[in-house]
């Protein structure tokens, strides 16, 4: 398990290490259902403890080179963060309800977004350790502003043509500011590969649109004939006329969501494969894009069909797949990393992202 330091050759040997997840769906089901039950009984207060327990289960059962990851956040801090975030969200929505004029507060949110992002990344990094050394994140306001506000707008305005550029900036920004103890990560995602990924995504979009459209059409025809008995002929005719439109829109929405997953998985591969740690170790990622789309889609279907009861199975399944698809090309033993003091981040910012479902983890 541990490279013997007495053998000098070991220092130079390049090793291909893979992440692995050793948890199981049954095990996680127990944790999940108990978390849910206690959260319900305590009217949500326990969610903070539940989150820590869930994270500790997933991190703690994820292994690399015979060592596991650890999640360190304290539930009380998470709870305080959640209360602050919920309070602010309720206040904002109340103000907008009183007068839509208060929507102008969104400008402040956009201006604060880079700061929230940095603080959230810093907190999450700081709460993660591997081999007794913690991750850290040192962001810069304008760097985040450019990568996460300016570039997404540019990508949108260019109708997606510049999306690879935006992806490159986003991943490079995160990689460049992430550290493991005193060692730094560095990401330089190649633009050419990112454009290749966009090309593949476009082909996927076309195929997905055809398939989703056809399924939507078949479904709408099915629903139309099903409810025929309740309606007048006129109503039925109107439904038939609007059916393809509804089906088309629904199909387009699903196709778009799937394409995003496809695209993001491709970007992850490219970004990880061009990320180094301490200038010598290299990350690897080989997520199968179609495979990953399939995993998420089938997860969703199974989760819905079992009214949520298979959710733990689905969560374990996708996490295990991502872990198994991720690796590290180690240039030597991983025993010479040193921890250092680093910005602690802000739990409120992290909980805001968590509650709003914003996630840069993939």
């Amino acid at each position, binding site marked *: 398990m541990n490279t013997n330091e007495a053998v000098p050759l070991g220092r130079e040997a390049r090793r291909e290490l893979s992440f692995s997840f050793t948890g199981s769906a049954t095990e996680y089901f127990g944790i999940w259902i108990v978390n849910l039950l206690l959260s319900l009984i305590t009217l949500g207060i326990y969610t903070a403890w539940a989150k820590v327990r869930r994270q500790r289960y997933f991190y703690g059962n994820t292994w690399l080179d015979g060592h596991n990851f650890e999640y360190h956040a304290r539930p009380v801090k998470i709870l305080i963060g959640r209360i602050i975030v919920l309070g602010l969200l309720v206040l904002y929505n109340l103000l907008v309800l009183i007068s839509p004029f208060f929507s102008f507060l969104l400008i402040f949110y956009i201006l604060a977004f880079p700061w929230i992002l940095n603080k959230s990344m810093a907190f999450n990094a700081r709460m993660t350790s591997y081999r007794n*050394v913690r991750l850290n994140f040192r962001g810069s306001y304008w760097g985040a502003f450019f990568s996460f506000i300016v570039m997404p707008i540019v990508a949108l305005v260019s109708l997606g043509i510049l999306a690879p550029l935006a992806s490159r900036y986003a991943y490079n920004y995160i990689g460049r500011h992430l550290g493991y103890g005193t060692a730094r990560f560095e990401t330089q995602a190649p633009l050419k590969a990112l454009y290749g990924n966009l090309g593949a995504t476009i082909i996927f979009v076309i195929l997905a649109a055809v398939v989703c459209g056809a399924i939507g059409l078949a479904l709408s025809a099915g629903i139309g004939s099903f409810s025929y008995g309740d309606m*007048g002929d006129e109503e039925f005719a109107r439904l038939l006329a609007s059916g393809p439109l509804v089906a088309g829109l629904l199909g387009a929405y699903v196709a778009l969501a799937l394409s995003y997953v496809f695209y993001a998985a491709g970007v992850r591969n490219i970004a990880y494969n061009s990320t180094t740690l301490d200038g010598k170790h290299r990350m690897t990622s080989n997520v199968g894009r179609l495979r990953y789309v399939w995993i998420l889609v089938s997860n969703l279907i199974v989760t819905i069909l079992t009214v949520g009861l298979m959710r733990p199975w689905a969560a374990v399944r996708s996490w295990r797949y991502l872990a198994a698809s991720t690796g590290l090309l180690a240039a030597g033993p991983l025993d010479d990393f040193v921890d250092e003091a680093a910005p602690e981040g802000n739990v409120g910012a992290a909980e805001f992202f968590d509650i709003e479902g914003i996630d840069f983890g993939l």
Partner: protein
Amino acid sequence: MIEGRYFPPASSAVTSAVLSGTPEALRLQETGGQEPMMPVLQSVSDPVAGVPRKFTFADGGVFEAAPGADVDGFLGTHKSFFSRLTRFEANLKYIALAAMVTIGLLFVAYRHGIPLLASGAAVMTPAPIVAAIDFGTLETVDRTLFEPTELPEKRQEALRALFAELSFAAGKKGPPLQLLLRKGGKTIGANAIALPGGTIIVTDELVTLAATDDEIAGVMAHEIGHVRERHSLQQIYRVLGIGFMVALVGGDASQLVDDVVTQASAVQTLVYSREFETSADLYSVDLMSRVGRDPVSFVDLLDRIGKDDEAAQETYWFSTHPGMKERRAAVEKKIRELAGG
């Protein structure tokens, strides 16, 4: 005595080691090390299935117990909350029980808990906030949807008198009632709207479409019912409550699952809103009977509004209002009840 491995402070270097002694006086012997160390214990990570327990020392060093080591036995923490919880989570019988209790609780919370909390919260919402919501909403709808009324002054006067009669009978409990007349125009047409703070808007088109004053009075009484029973506030709180429950269940869900569940619960809130409509109808029947007016006739007016809209006749899953047939039946049933009792 626990076997495991040791990380020196702030270092990723590792050696196998053995921890012995007592939690107060620990002895840590590194394999191949000379003297045992006497670290001061700061914390031990809580047990979670499959995850090695980690002892963190005051100097930042960490001892990681080997998988399966009896850490609770060493620390004497068998009965701590998380040790019990971990055993509970791993017991198939217990988690099956927990699953059943959770499903039951979710159902009860959804059917009774959230509506109960919502109506409690609606009552407790401070009056100034409710008034502010009215003020803000009115400002917006006046700017975007409505035009000033074009009814003759005399007709307006008569409608206000009618409204005063009803609001007097409705009593003073709750927000002060106020009638506003507006022209609905193309987008709104014949309609009546109740804001939570007691502002009730009736459109010119509705007044024109009515055959008798009793029809208008019935609609006004229906809207007064919404205000008195605080339906719009309850609706807001119920939506919040459902959102909260969705977040609880799907706390670890990916965005995709979240989206689907949120859409489904949005549809479900429409069912809630139908429930409020029925309740307001019954309130109207009650109030109209008390002032000695015809309690059924407003259904005729609603019928006429819905005439050009065939879908309004039936209740669908997606409707905000109950179908007209269902409404008429419920109203007539209530009248029979009032007559009988």
